[in-house]
């Protein structure tokens, strides 16, 4: 289990690698999972990491502009990150990896898969954003930046009180990381809001087995949105996790890990 700074193109990426799992489990089991985090960032202490890393090698880049990863001035889109991560896969020889992407990480995964579906085995998209399926006069994804923080928390979490981040308990560095992540999220998703209009015209190429997961109380991603997204891939199905909102990996880590590992064939 370690984090390393890797330079990819001109970006310094903080990449967590849980390391290879005991080799006597067979070569298939050594296949890595590339995990792409959501807007809240990644921390190896998050509760879903251990159950997944027990079974599989996990490789987790922290997105540019989040955590310790740098943000060059040319980078301003999810598409930029998708290209960068394909290059990261070259560096780390990750071809054939499974990928899990949450929220904006799901969007990154979808962009990567449309560019090079053959480089992945299976896809798990968790509350993914990235497409627009509803009418022009209604946002598909509620505007979390234009509402009181407490309202946004209610949309994101099944139990906002339990999950709420206590700013007072964070160090200045941790607090700075929270604001930096928010800023980068805005940079990447502002316009068009949370989607790439071209993505849905490309998803049909992604024939990989795909699982779309949604927390039952997710206030950002509706069930209709998730199903419409899944229908754009020829080989996808959906799954609901109870008592969870937009981040089921944090609110129901055991159920999340079990569902993911089952789908990935453990």
């Amino acid at each position, binding site marked *: 289990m370690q984090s390393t700074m890797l330079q990819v193109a001109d970006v310094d990426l903080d990449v967590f690698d849980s390391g290879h799992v005991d080799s006597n489990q067979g070569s298939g089991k050594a296949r890595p999972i590339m995990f792409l985090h959501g807007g809240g960032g990644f921390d190896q202490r998050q509760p879903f990491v251990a159950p997944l890393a027990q079974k599989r090698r996990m490789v987790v880049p922290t997105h540019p502009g989040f955590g310790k990863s740098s943000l060059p*001035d040319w980078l*301003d889109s999810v598409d930029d990150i998708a290209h960068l991560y394909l290059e990261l896969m070259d560096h780390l020889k990750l071809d054939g990896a499974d990928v899990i992407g949450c929220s904006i990480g799901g969007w990154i995964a979808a962009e990567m898969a449309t560019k090079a579906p053959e480089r992945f085995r299976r896809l798990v998209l968790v509350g993914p954003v990235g497409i627009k399926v509803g009418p022009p006069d209604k946002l598909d994804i509620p505007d979390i*930046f*234009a*509402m*009181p*923080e407490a309202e946004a928390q209610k949309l994101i979490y099944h139990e906002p009180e339990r999950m709420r981040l206590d*700013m007072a308990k964070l160090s*200045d560095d941790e*607090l*700075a990381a929270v*604001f*930096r992540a*928010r*800023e*980068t*999220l*805005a*940079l990447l998703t*502002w*316009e068009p809001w949370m989607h790439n209009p071209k993505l849905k015209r490309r998803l049909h190429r992604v024939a990989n087995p795909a699982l779309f997961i949604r927390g039952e109380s997710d206030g950002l991603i509706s069930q209709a949105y998730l199903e419409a997204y899944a229908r754009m891939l020829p080989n996808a199905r959906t799954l609901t996790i109870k008592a969870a909102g937009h981040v089921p990996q944090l609110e129901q880590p055991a159920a999340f890990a079990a569902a993911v590992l089952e789908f990935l064939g453990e």
Partner: protein
Amino acid sequence: MRAWHFSETAYPYLPPAESYPSIRVSLPNRIYDPAKGAALYDRYIDEWLIAEDEGVEIMLNEHHQTATCVDPAAPLMLAALARLSKKARLLILGNPIANRRQPVRVAEEMAMVDVLSHGRLEAGFVRGVPYEILPANSNPVRMNERHWEALDLIVKCWTHHDGPFSHEGRFFHHRSINIWPRPIQQPHPPIWVSTTSTGGAAQVGAHGYIQATFLTGFDTTKRIYDGYRRGWREAGRGEDVPIDRLAYAALIYVGETEARARAGAEKLLWYITANKVPPHFSNPPGYVPVAMNVQLARGAHNVVSAFGTEQATVEGAIEAGTMFAGTPDQVFHQIKKHWNHVGGYGHLLIMGQAGFLEHDDTVHGIRMFAREVYPRLKEIYPETMVSGTSAKLDAVAN
């Protein structure tokens, strides 16, 4: 010293503030009665023209989706004023170019107003307050970079006279730029930029543009001006910064008597008391630097929305240096004290109308300032003065 009458053309006829969460961005426009709005435009234009008659210059600005300033297309108002006024300088402060998608169009609008007004335009550019982000659907991240690319491109539009040129920058792309008309003023109209940060001010100083700051009181204004003077000197513009490079905007009301001044000043506070805006509009992600957000989360005061409650009284605002109000003598001394503290400036932007300050009272304030205070300011602060030397001057005087 040059004085400017600044009106935000506010629409004050609102329901109780408790009935809405924000006066900006989300306040439904069904509240706006266009007939009343037309009468208000007539009145505010009259007040600008009265200021002109009194020898005061004209200033306006632009905001969107708000009752506090119903001038979402300021170049249109500027065009009207260009024809209605005869001699006043016309300052737009300013064009929110980080929020406008076509800087070339802005260059055209400004050039056209300069010609319409026979060379009276003062072209201001602002980053825009945070509540402008949503109405413009503008990305709050990297605004400063967009702002400067746009401004440099606008200046090139004004100064390039040999047929089409191209621009392929970070944010803006044009294959063929060749604006008609070009400005009357050569090489281009005076350029103003507002900022609230010392780093921003240094950048404005390096360009030699006129730096304006709004309601930043004593110490913050001094820091901003220090930044400007530093940027000016480091860019090799010389040791002396003329005071005409610096401007300060304050709430100003001069009354014939203390009682009348007090009544007018109370009404000017509407700018502060009516500005009800929730945090998700006043601080979108990326608008202020990360380090500033950390300080704000730890309880620091937000300079960007300096409308703190401690300034919601006449005494508090005067104490803070955001308001100059009283009899001519009192106002003269308040301005002098502020002027000396910050190092000196050559432009006073007078926020002299707000909310329910009625026409007669607004005109009274304009005339009292123009006749009883302005001549004294012009006398002690001639435009040939240098900024940042007042401490030395004081030492000499003592």
